[in-house]
């Protein structure tokens, strides 16, 4: 007793008591009127019989040999009397007469597809408000419940059934039916059990709902005492399971318990009663510790405290479920707000938040001989096993565990007629924390947080969260949402996450394309939705509680497993290079296969995987990302493109040349481009094989025929032919899918020829540089040794100076005469003539001064590299060229600046506590150099990496000016 007093909060009833003219009542309620199907004035009102009066009509037949009609009538009357005899209730139930027939199997039948029963037991027979059918041979039970249901084997469940089947707009029952199975009344020993079940059925007919009190009688934990049994309400959802007559399991099974009495008195209160009442609301605590959102679904238990021992009674006790007059199922944007028949889910129960946490403990009995009593209030969770038609209050759609706890509360000095208001704020309950994605309703979804793994909550009533992500075709993805409690532990007794999928552009509040019901996986509290994408679009995910509920303890964790893209988009045939998979939801359990071959993961974050591409040949391959912890497989059909794919195209850009003397190189290349099927998107790093006939001619790049060259970043390849035969040459460029393009060139063999190699040099205006130049002298296709070649200026530059290193040069064994042109700040283009010493033939060497504004940079190789830590970068190669006609420019100064950034790894994004965006990084290293383009216009730069840097992004900026195309960026991503 002493300890008890220390552990409870004590409220002196005298302080807050409101002496009522009559006692309000409490207890379980079967159904409460809602905003649809009832008059507005009765919304929130429990459904009862009008005027607290029920007239019933009984079958003309016998129930059984043991209970012929009159005996059965008495039996039914006695059952109802248990409810009407409650002193604190004002209720009249009386037999008003007989039904017009003996209801049996012969008059319960089908007409066509319609059930035909006697008119006076149908729901429309409101002039016979309650019909009682004596199903003597079980045939009616068989007909209504299923073949064999009327057998005595099933008396434990089918001895009495039926209930209210019609009500009025004023929240009154209009009709009900009870069927009593005569097979369950064959022996006198059967009758106590049958009576127990009939009293329970009668309670339901009268509008009494189920009640959870002394639930250990059902669960066995702790072992029930005699007090538990004596207080165990007849209206417990399941009652005791008894392997003998009910009398062997429950004492006085035909006697209502205090909880039953309180329940009937709540529905049909007597004008004056000797009981007391405690009512109020249960609340979550807000940020300041004051009353926050009302808390529905808490079993509020009042036990009378023994004045001598201080022990809370398990006999004199009653319960009320908070929010029992509030709606339990409101629907949600995913499943909709109406049934298939167009009836709102929220038909029953009020939408008024004032009822959401409301409890009403009335019918609190004062011990006889005493003037007052003390009651202890405790809060208990509802047993989640009681749901559907055994559900309690709004918990029939799934019990919700209360959030937090309170010490027992004692209300003292309760006197008859007292009415105490006692709100309860649960101080250690979950508190609403607006998650970072809010507001993210249907019309304004938030992007899926980086990494695709996040926490959120459905924190207020009716809350639904919507997220979107960009999806590409041919992907299969999975979203798993796990309900969590306030401690972030997965649970099935908080939110019931229901998932929906829409296109983001879907009309407001339209039904989803796809939905998933709560808890459809084998993981506690988890719901999963999977889909395969069609067209490229933004997809929207919706997360709602199945009931449309929302409260501060409805936390969840969501994880989207989706593979968006691979970079680079094209992997060289043979693989072996790192590639990045971009997507959502990767973690330590992720494994990757490409084309069915394992792809080792080199580095990972939630939104990105660096994998080693397995060795595969040309073509497309599926990418599969598997979560080994749950078996989810996100796929990308044909997600990896190796080398050349079947749809790739080969285009001839140019191949024109003048007749080329045998022994000389063609002045113009054969230029081809490989693209994807769209004809535009370049395909880099795939091989183009050139061949030429006659076979003795070859390609300068390989000094061979055929010759295979990889495409550059623009998908192009340039191939110069070294002509070694006369006549028409047929050139073919081929890629692995068989696509090919032709070209021609003509080889000539004049008696004497001189050819500039190359015929033109491009330098920037103002260049000061020494240009090596060369001409080849041939005679009928053979090099001429010892031939003097005279060099002179055909034209001169308009400004600056140009001088020749030597006026004459003698050819070597290859027929070549090499010279040097020294330029100093040359201001315009000019021409040099080279003639054999006899004066003919001659050739011109053009020195073309390119204006700075016309100089551009073209990345060729290595501009975007992905490396695992420890790997070395490849050179970055760019070509400096003039914008038109797209030829290389040598001796151009290119500035190269490098910045190295440490890269932050994207971690799970906690909407509650952290910023979802990566912090911007500052460079940890910078450098600057200049390079000069070579005779082919190329510059080559290899970033240097330091081991101490770890995971970094290395950005290199190449610049020849500030105009379009004059800067290019290279990037090396190093993963660790």
């Amino acid at each position, binding site marked *: 007793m002493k300890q008890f007093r220390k552990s409870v909060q004590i409220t002196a009833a005298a302080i807050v008591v409101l002496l009522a003219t009559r006692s309000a009542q409490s207890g379980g309620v*079967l*159904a*409460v009127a809602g905003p649809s*199907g009832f008059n507005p004035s009765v919304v929130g009102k429990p*459904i009862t019989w009008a005027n607290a009066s029920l007239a019933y009509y009984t079958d003309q037949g016998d129930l059984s040999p043991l209970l012929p009609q009159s005996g059965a009538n008495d039996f039914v009357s006695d059952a109802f009397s248990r409810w009407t005899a409650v002193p604190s209730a004002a209720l009249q139930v009386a037999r008003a007469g007989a039904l017009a027939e003996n209801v049996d199997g012969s008059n*319960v*039948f*089908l007409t066509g597809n*319609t*059930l035909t029963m006697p008119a006076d037991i*149908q*729901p429309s027979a409101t002039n016979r408000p309650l019909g009682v059918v004596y199903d003597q041979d079980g045939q009616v039970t068989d*007909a*209504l*419940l*299923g*073949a*064999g249901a009327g057998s*005595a*084997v*099933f008396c434990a469940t*089918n001895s009495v*059934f*039926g209930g*209210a*089947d019609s*009500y009025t707009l004023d929240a009154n029952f209009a009709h009900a039916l009870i069927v009593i199975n005569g*097979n*369950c*009344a*064959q022996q006198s020993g*059967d009758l106590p059990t049958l009576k127990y079940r009939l009293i329970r059925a009668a309670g*339901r007919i009268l509008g009494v709902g189920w009640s959870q009190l002394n639930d250990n009688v*059902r*669960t066995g*934990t702790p*072992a*029930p*005492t*005699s007090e538990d049994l004596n207080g165990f309400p007849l209206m417990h959802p399941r009652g*005791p*399971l*008894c*392997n003998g*007559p009910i009398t*062997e*399991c429950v*004492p006085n099974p035909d006697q209502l318990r205090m909880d039953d009495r309180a329940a009937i008195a709540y529905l049909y209160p007597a004008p004056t009663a000797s009981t007391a009442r405690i009512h109020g609301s249960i609340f979550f605590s807000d940020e300041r510790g004051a009353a926050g959102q009302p808390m529905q679904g808490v079993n509020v238990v009042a036990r009378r405290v023994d004045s001598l021992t201080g022990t809370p009674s398990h006999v004199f006790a009653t319960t009320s479920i908070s929010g029992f007059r509030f709606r339990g199922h409101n629907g949600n944007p995913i499943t909709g707000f109406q049934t*298939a*028949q167009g009836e709102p889910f929220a038909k*029953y129960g009020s939408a008024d938040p004032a009822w959401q946490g409301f409890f009403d403990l009335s019918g609190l009995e004062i011990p006889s001989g005493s003037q007052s009593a003390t009651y202890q209030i405790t809060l208990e969770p509802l047993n989640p096993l009681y749901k*559907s*038609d*055994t559900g309690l209050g709004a918990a*029939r*759609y799934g019990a919700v565990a209360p959030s937090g706890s309170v010490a027992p509360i004692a209300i003292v000095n309760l006197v008859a007629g007292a009415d105490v208001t006692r709100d309860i704020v649960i101080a250690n309950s979950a508190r609403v924390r607006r998650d970072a994605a809010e507001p993210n309703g249907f019309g304004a979804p938030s992007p899926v947080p980086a990494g695709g793994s996040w926490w959120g909550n459905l924190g207020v009533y009716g809350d639904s969260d919507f997220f979107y992500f960009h999806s590409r075709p041919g992907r299969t993805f999975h979203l798993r949402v796990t309900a969590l409690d306030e401690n972030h532990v997965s649970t*099935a007794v908080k939110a019931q996450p*229901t998932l929906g999928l829409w296109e983001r552009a879907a009309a407001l509040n339209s039904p989803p394309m796809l939905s998933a019901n709560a808890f459809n996986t*084998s993981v506690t*509290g988890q719901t999963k939705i999977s889909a395969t994408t069609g067209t490229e679009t933004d997809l929207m995910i919706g997360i709602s509680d199945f009931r449309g509920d929302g409260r501060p303890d409805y936390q969840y964790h969501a994880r989207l497993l989706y593979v968006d893209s691979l970079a680079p988009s094209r992997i060289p045939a043979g693989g072996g290079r790192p590639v990045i998979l971009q997507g959502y939801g990767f973690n330590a359990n992720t494994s990757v296969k490409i084309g069915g071959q394992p792809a080792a993961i080199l580095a990972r974050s939630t939104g990105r995987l660096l994998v080693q591409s397995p060795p595969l040949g040309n073509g497309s391959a599926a990418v599969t990302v598997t979560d080994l912890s749950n078996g989810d497989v996100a796929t990308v059909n044909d997600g990896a493109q190796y080398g050349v794919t079947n749809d790739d195209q080969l285009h001839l850009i140019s191949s024109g040349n003048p007749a080329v003397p045998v022994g000389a190189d063609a002045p113009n290349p054969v230029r081809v481009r490989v693209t994807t099927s769209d004809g535009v998107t370049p395909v880099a790093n795939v091989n183009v094989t050139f061949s030429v006939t006659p076979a003795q001619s070859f390609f300068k790049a390989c000094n061979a025929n055929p010759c295979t060259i990889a495409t550059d970043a623009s998908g192009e390849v340039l191939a110069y032919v070294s002509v070694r035969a006369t006549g028409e040459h047929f050139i073919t460029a081929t890629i692995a899918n068989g696509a090919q393009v032709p070209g021609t060139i003509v080889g000539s063999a004049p008696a004497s020829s001189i050819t500039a190699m190359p015929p033109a040099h491009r330098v920037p205006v103002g260049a000061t540089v020494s240009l090596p130049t060369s001409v080849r002298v041939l005679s009928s296709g053979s090099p001429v040794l010892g031939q003097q070649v005279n060099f002179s200026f055909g034209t001169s530059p308009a400004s600056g100076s140009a001088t020749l290193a030597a006026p004459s040069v003698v050819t070597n064994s290859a027929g070549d005469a090499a010279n040097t042109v020294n330029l100093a700040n040359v201001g315009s283009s000019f021409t040099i003539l080279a003639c054999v010493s006899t004066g003919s033939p001659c050739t011109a060497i053009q020195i073309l001064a390119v204006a700075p504004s016309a100089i551009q940079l073209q990345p060729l190789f290595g501009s975007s590299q992905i490396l695992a830590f420890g790997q070395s970068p490849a050179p970055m190669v760019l070509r400096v060229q003039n914008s038109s006609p797209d030829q290389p420019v040598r001796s151009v100064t290119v500035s190269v600046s490098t910045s190295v950034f440490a890269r932050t790894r994207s971690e799970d994004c906690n909407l509650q506590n952290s910023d979802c965006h990566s912090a911007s990084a500052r460079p940890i290293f910078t450098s600057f150099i200049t390079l000069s383009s070579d005779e082919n216009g190329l510059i080559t730069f290899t970033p240097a990496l330091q081991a101490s840097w770890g995971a970094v992004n290395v950005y290199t900026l190449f610049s020849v000016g500030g105009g379009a195309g004059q800067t290019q960026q290279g990037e090396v991503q190093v993963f660790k």
Partner: protein
Amino acid sequence: MGRTILRCGYVGLAMLVAMAHAGDPSSRTGSAYSGPDLQQITQKAGMIFLGRVERVEWKHAAGGGPGDRVRITLLVLDGIRGANTGQRVEVQEWSGLWTPGHDRYQPGETVFLFLYPKSRLGFTSPVAGDAGRMDISPTQRIVLSPERAASLFPRSLRLQKNAGSTQSLREQYSSEYAQFAQIVRELAGVAR
């Protein structure tokens, strides 16, 4: 009174053992008191299957007006008797079983059902009420209360192939769905 209490079979495992000897339901076939065991339920069932509720339709406005039946459409996830896996079955219940506001089935829920054979009126319902309907836990397990386990799996219920699983259910009150389905299949004489 005390002796009466001690004879009740719902006070934990020790009491369950006592109950199994004193009040074995299977020994009281046809009794008006006890619930049938799993063998009896299986024998009486016309349809046995694991299904997911897809649709619930009233033939009249729910809770009022003339009408007679509620039609429940289920997708059969595991058919054992009278229903094939992958099939959609329509079950019709007498509307009098549906208390206003207390829907017996919710679209989306997964249930294991033993249903009576259809009556001459086309109605059916779970065999032995609650006993013939089992919810699947979020972890895909059949979970029973202790007393229900004792009722469904009395010691007299002996199986050739699934004795271990039966004992597990009797003593631990839950099992993987697959194990439970095997027990039912054996009782129903249906090969997997």
